[in-house]
Every structure is written in C-alpha cells, then in structure tokens.
C-alpha cells in the first residue's frame, strides 16, 4: 500500500487567505478545514462573495497577486501544497487536481481549436506525441458525448452545453483523482444542466474521481453530493451528510438557506435572509453571521464560536447549536426574520 493511501485525498486545515485591499487586508477565508476522501462527492455551498472561488484558487495555486495564504495547510495525498515548491505544484495541477470552471464560454480560448486546448493539457504533463495526445483528446470528447471530429472546431462553433462538456473532457484528460467544479452549470438551462450532471455522475462511477462541487444552488448539492459544507463569510459554518444537514440544519444560516429554497406544492413564499455579508476588511469580533441572525445573543457578538461536533460526522459553528431543535420551528416563520429586517443594526 502506498503511504499516500492512508491520507485523505485532500485535507485542508486551518486555512486563512487574505486579500490586500486599499482599506487593509480582507480576510476572505478564515480557519477553514475540509476533507475529501477517495471517490467522495462534497458540496460546498454559500452565497456570492463568501470565499468559495478563493478557496478553489488557493487549492489550484492560481491566486491573484494581492492574495496571500496567511495560515494553514492544503495537503494533497498527504503532501502540503502551500509550502511545496513551484515544480511540485505544477505537477499536481491538472494531473492531481483538475477543475471544471464556471462559464465555459470564457474558459476556452477563442482563437485555439478545442481539441488543441485539451491536448496541450495532456502534453504539459505526459511525454506523448502530438498524434497520441490528439487520439486521447478524441476519446475524451467521445466519453463526454461530443462527436470526436468536433475537436477541430473552435469554441464559438460549440453550443453552451458542448462547451461545458469539452471543459469536463479537459478536466478528465489526465485521469485526476480529484476534480473541482466551480458553478459548472450556472450559464446553462435546466435541461442541459441536468444532462451535464448525469454524465458527470456516470463518469465518476467509471473513473472513480472525487468531486468538490462548489455552487450557490442548494438543489444541485442535494442531487449530487453525499456530504455538504456550508460556507459563510469565509468560514465553514456547518458540515455533514447532505440529507441530515438539509433535513435538520444545526446552524441558523443553513436554516435561512433552506427557507430561501422554493418548495414544490407549498404555498409559502420563500423567505430571504435580510442584510448582507459583513465587511471582511473589518470582520466582526464575534460570530460572522451574528448581524443577520435572528437568534443572536450578546455572546455571539463578542465571542467567535468554534466549529464543534454536534453529532457523529456533523459539525456546526454556532453558540446555540445545542438549542437548535427549539429554534428551528421559529426559523420557519417569516416574522422571525422580518423582525431583523425592521430593526436593522
């Protein structure tokens, strides 16, 4: 057995990332820990600007110049990527961890053939001939349901769904153990979105890669991931098996998210969480969600809660996680949140 097999595939511990801004450093990610096992699907959910994309960039090692990893480690198969030299990092990119990016239209270079863009990823890591890389490219496109002769086409000759399929083919080019997916289907209509995820799951069955699905669409996570992590303002506020987390959230933010999800056959209007995320250049001293939480206590505003285990396999970052059974019915009522809306602080 290889030593790497004893480690989880990807293990992030205590990660903190900050961006340099004119008003001082913004803490985009704070004290973030995650683990993904082999063949596992993890959904990472959170609203825009909560640090999801920053996390992916940190893992891929393509952060912008003004971003800095302030603390923590990102271990891939047991080896820390944060401290690793550039050569090792480059070898892990794509061959170890690949990515299905958001908005496939902009992710493909408009002036290069789709096939060449896939083949160059292969040739950057494997010592193969052009012809061989091209054959592999055609096989990959066939695998994701695109006719292989379309490899000679340019991106503008592809439909939106085909582009996304091409991106998936590209992500699987080197048979990586881990695939990150950043809002992979936001630009597509629901029917195509469903097709894409069906083929993604079928491919996963065949190839056995792990998937980290990053999205703001709770429904996608419910359909595709056995575990979910909920992110708010750069922190993970709750994590656990998807079914349990959705059925019985243990964090007020997750309760709010669930409220915002329209339900079929229900006459209730979805309830939005009032307010917006905190200013990350000056994060609140206590819980980052306190200002928008209908259940916040004075303690919540001064003392940051720790991520604690609330049940086997489940963690939440809330001072009142133990009382959640009593709070959950209140959270389902619109007036609970309206009170916050009426008295903004």
């Amino acid at each position, binding site marked *: 057995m290889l030593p790497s097999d004893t480690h989880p595939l990807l293990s992030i511990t205590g990660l903190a990332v900050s961006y340099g801004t004119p008003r001082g450093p913004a803490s985009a990610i704070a004290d973030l820990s995650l683990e993904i096992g082999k063949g596992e699907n993890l959904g990472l959910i959170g609203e825009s600007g909560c640090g999801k994309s920053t996390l992916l960039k940190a893992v*891929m090692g*393509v952060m912008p110049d003004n971003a800095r990893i302030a603390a923590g480690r990102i271990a891939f198969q047991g080896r820390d990527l944060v401290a690793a030299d550039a050569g090792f990092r*480059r*070898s*892990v*990119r*794509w*061959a170890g961890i*690949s*990515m299905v*990016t*958001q*908005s496939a239209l*902009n*992710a*493909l*270079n*408009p*002036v*290069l*053939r789709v096939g060449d863009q896939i083949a*160059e*990823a292969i040739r*950057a*890591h494997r010592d193969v001939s052009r012809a061989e890389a091209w054959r592999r490219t055609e096989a990959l496109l066939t695998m994701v349901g695109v006719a292989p002769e379309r490899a000679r086409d*340019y991106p*503008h000759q592809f439909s939106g769904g085909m582009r996304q399929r091409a991106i998936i083919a*590209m992500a699987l080019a080197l048979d990586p153990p881990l695939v990150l997916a950043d809002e992979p289907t936001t630009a597509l209509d629901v029917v195509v979105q469903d097709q894409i995820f069906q083929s993604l799951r079928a491919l996963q069955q065949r190839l056995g890669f792990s998937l980290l699905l990053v999205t703001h669409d709770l429904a996608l996570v419910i359909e595709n991931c056995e575990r979910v992590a909920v992110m708010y303002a750069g922190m993970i506020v709750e994590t656990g098996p998807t079914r349990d987390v959705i059925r019985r959230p243990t964090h007020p933010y997750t309760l709010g998210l669930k409220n915002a999800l329209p339900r079929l056959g229900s006459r209730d209007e979805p309830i939005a969480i009032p307010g917006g995320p905190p200013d990350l250049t000056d994060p609140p001293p206590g819980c980052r969600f306190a200002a928008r939480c209908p259940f916040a206590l004075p303690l919540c505003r001064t003392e940051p809660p720790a991520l604690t285990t609330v049940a086997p396999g489940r963690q939440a970052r809330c001072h009142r996680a133990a009382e959640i059974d009593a709070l959950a019915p209140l959270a389902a009522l619109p007036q609970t949140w309206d009170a916050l809306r009426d008295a903004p602080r």
Partner: protein
Amino acid sequence: MAGYLLRRFWHMVLTLFAMATLMFFLFRLLPGDPTATVISPSLYPKAQEAMRQQFGLDRPLFEQYLLYLRNLLVLDFGFSFQTNRPVFEMIQGRLLNTLLLILPSMFAAYLLGAVIGAIAAWKRGSAGEVGLVFTATALQSAPLFWLGMLAILLFSIKLDLFPIGHIVTPGLFPEQDWRMYLSADFLHHLALPFLVNTLYQLCFPLLLMRSTMLSTIGEDYIELARMKGLSERRVLFGHAARNALLPLATTLPMILGWAVAGSVVIETVFSWPGLGLLMVEAISRADYPVAQAAFLLIAVLTVFGTFIADLLCGLLDPRIVYA
C-alpha cells in the same frame, strides 16, 4: 473565400480610381501654371502653343483626365519635367530603395514590439516595465526627424560608427545595379536609418500590445491555462499573446501607411534615395509628373497594406469568416 477576394479586389480598384481622380484634379487646382517649368514663357507664343498641343494641354480638362486614366492603366506616368526621363523608370529604383528600408524595419518593429509589449504586460508594475512604458511613450511623441538628427549626431559624427547618409558611398557603384544591394557598404549605410525607424515605429505596437495583453491576462482562459499546469512561457505566448495579436493585426495597415508617409522624413534626414526623398525633390522643383506618380504609388502601397491586414485578421481569428 474566392468571392470575398474578388469583391475585396474590386473595392481596391475603386479606391485607387478615386485616389487617381483626386490627384489629377488637385494638381490642376494648384496655383500657378505647372507647365511653366517646361514651356518657358520666354518662348514665342507660337512655339508655346505648339508645345501645348504636343502635351495635349489645349484639350478640355475632361479629355485630359481620360487620357491620364488611360495612361495610368498601361503604367505610363509621362516624362519628368526635370530630367526628361520616363517617370516610371525613375520611380522603380526609388521604390525598391524605400521598400528595402521600410519593410524590414516595419517587420522588426512589429515583431519586437509584440514580444516586448507582451513581456511588459506580464511584468506589470516592475521598475523595468514602468521605465519601458515611459521611454516608449516619449519616443513615440518625439518627431522622427529629430530622432534621426540626434542619431546622426551621436553615431555618425561623435562616434563615427555609421555614414551620415546616402545608400552607398558615392562613386563606389557607378552602375547602381544589384551588386550594390548585396554589398557590405549598403548594409553599413542601411543600419542607422533602419535602427532609427525601427525604434520609432516599435513604440506603437509595443504600447498597444501591452495594453491589450493587460486585458487579456484577466480572462478566464488564461487562469485555466495556468491551472492546466502549462509553463508560464506557454501561457504567455501560446494563450495571452496569441489573443492580444488581433488588434495589432488590424492596426497594421494604418502603421504601414504611416511608415510609408514617414519615409519622406527618414529619407530626407538620411539622404536615402527612396520614394519619399524623390517626392520632396519633385515638389521643390515643381516636377509634377514625378510628384503625382509618387503620391499615387504611396496610395497603392497603403491600400494594398490594408488588404493584407484584412487577410491576416482572418488568419489569426477563426471567428472571422470571409463570406
């Protein structure tokens, strides 16, 4: 594609026809009698009349115009007032001299400009990049003749590295044939105007490449290319620069036009016997047939350059389809 080429060719013919017409009437609008240099007013009126008839100047303007167009079609530009030689013959050699200076210089300027501009964008914010942009902007704003004079002052007079002008050492090649162009002496004379012109023309593609690169670098496909584990060089030249080249290609005709027009300046400063210098000489000596033909030739070169740039764009950007 064939249909496009045909249509494009037809447009070129129309443009040139318009240019030729404009040229003809502009020269007739010039104050004074341009024929006075050949048909001396001191001649007997009878003799003057005879000469006018010989040149066809007694006919109505429109008839003269048709005659002029017919002659253009068979590349007959008439005779020089000054030397009495056929204008076509005079221009041929001059055109070659201009092209030998301008084309390699433009080629070098575009190639270097694109590469340096791409690297400058990649190293944005570094002291070297800031200095480079400042220098390029300053050079671009400086008059070309002044740069040429400074170069002559420094390299020819102070350092005595290059000759101060002309295409070869006078008297070295009395025949002025192809052997002249293959000689080291020619290259020695070519070097300084070539360098000055290249340096001057380099600034525009450099600055343009840099600014397009800066917007290209922020694109998602650049990030993806990097995430694929491609080397920085490959990301820079294979992806970013490849896209940033498009606007550069569209400006090529404009730049070619400037370069040919600029040849008037550079050739005058370096006494380079090209088309530009011929034009200056012709105008100052009221040698209208020569000036007219030189102007027309510059128009032809510019129109042709635009055509080449159009084709180049389609080659670089697959989204452009000729239909």
